[in-house]
């Protein structure tokens, strides 16, 4: 075996990797934010809404969590197009990632909401807080604080999973890598570089989430997970 590693393509091509990374950041930040919003609404519905709606949300969550993301992406991209609505690859990728993230967030947030003691909600009611105030200040914020580590983990997984959207040629890091490797024929080296870029992104996301958490939840008290 004699293989000579050749990373010389980096000299010329590094801007492509940087741009790919930036595209992945844009794609996933949008997907995480929208997916979080969708999941939070669904979690509230899962706990408080009419039984029929609860069932519907539960069905959505199970359907997404028990099928591969790749199939969800194909269904959105090719499926919706076949129904006559042509979506671009990027839009399809965002939709699929949001729907996926929403389902996982629903389960995480539901656990957080259910962990809020009932007496706190009753107490807030007695103090005359409006329904909206109760939901936002007494239920949601403490719930998010409680499940914040799980949300961070799920967001990281979504960022990594977004590499799959390259398969419908959405513009992001993995797709960029495929272009570079098809032009340079240094497949192994290209994917080593991409792996390192993803590792760096994971680290950046982790630090970012930690910073957001530190700014958002100033109380800094240890929250046990309720059973």
């Amino acid at each position: 075996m004699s293989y000579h590693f050749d990373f010389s393509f980096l000299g010329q091509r590094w801007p492509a990797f940087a741009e790919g990374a930036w595209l992945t950041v844009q794609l996933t930040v949008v997907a995480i934010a929208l997916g979080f919003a969708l999941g939070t609404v669904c979690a509230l519905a899962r706990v408080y809404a009419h039984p029929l709606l609860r069932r519907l949300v539960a069905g959505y969550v199970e359907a997404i969590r028990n099928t591969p993301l790749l199939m969800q992406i194909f269904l959105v991209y090719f499926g919706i197009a076949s129904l006559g609505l042509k979506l671009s690859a990027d839009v399809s990728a965002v939709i699929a990632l949001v729907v996926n993230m929403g389902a996982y967030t629903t389960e995480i947030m539901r656990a957080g909401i259910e962990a809020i003691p009932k007496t706190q909600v009753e107490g807030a009611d007695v103090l005359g807080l409006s329904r909206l105030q109760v939901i936002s200040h007494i239920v949601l914020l403490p719930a998010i604080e409680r499940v914040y580590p799980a949300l961070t983990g799920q967001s990281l997984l979504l960022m990594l999973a977004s590499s799959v959207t390259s398969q419908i040629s959405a513009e992001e890091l993995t797709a960029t890598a495929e272009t570079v490797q098809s032009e340079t024929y240094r497949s192994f080296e290209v994917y080593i570089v991409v792996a390192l870029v993803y590792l760096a992104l994971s680290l950046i996301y982790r630090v970012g989430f930690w910073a957001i958490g530190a700014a958002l939840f100033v109380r800094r008290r240890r929250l046990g997970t309720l059973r």
Partner: protein
Amino acid sequence: MIQFNSMHVFYLLEAAKWTIALSLIAFIGGAMLGLALALARVSRFKILRLAAMGYIQVIQGTPLLIVLFLSYFGLSIVGYRLDSLVAAGLSLSLFSGAFLGEIWRGCIEAVPRPQWEASDCLGLNRLQQYVYVILPQAMRIAIPPTVGFMVEVVKNTSLASIIGFVELARAGQIVNNATFQPFLVFALVGVIYFAICYPLTVASRRLEKRFHVAR
């Protein structure tokens, strides 16, 4: 263009067998690696702990798709012919191993401290402690999350389609190319995946409940 018919359904079901086979390969390979990693993570030797942690951090910070590409192209460098089953089995094992290692480390650490101390007092050596005292108890704790993780393994095998291994996802693409009914085809593929995964999800949930009651 061919009309979608029952033949295609059979073709998809046939391909689903490969999804299950690949899942088993990935799970068995991942389990062996995962056990080694979990034990290394709780080892007395710092170097082992660090090495295992480094491996887990790297794999968990890299997309499976990239691990898959690296195995695929890496194997060809070492001189093997590009065999997609080998590459898929290898990368899925490497990937599952990291996650199972982390899950099982938690399970080993969840075994109460006095169990270690008591088995020490009985004069068991480290190996005996693991085999007779710690691992049997850790295994009980580990079953629900492990079954839950199997769902992830099954879903992850869909990525093998990208390097050309014909399993359920790839078969779906092939059928779609022939019939051009993506909505129907991918929905059906999704249903088949669901039929494989959902029983595992339910089993994991039930086992977890039973475990909590038993404690």
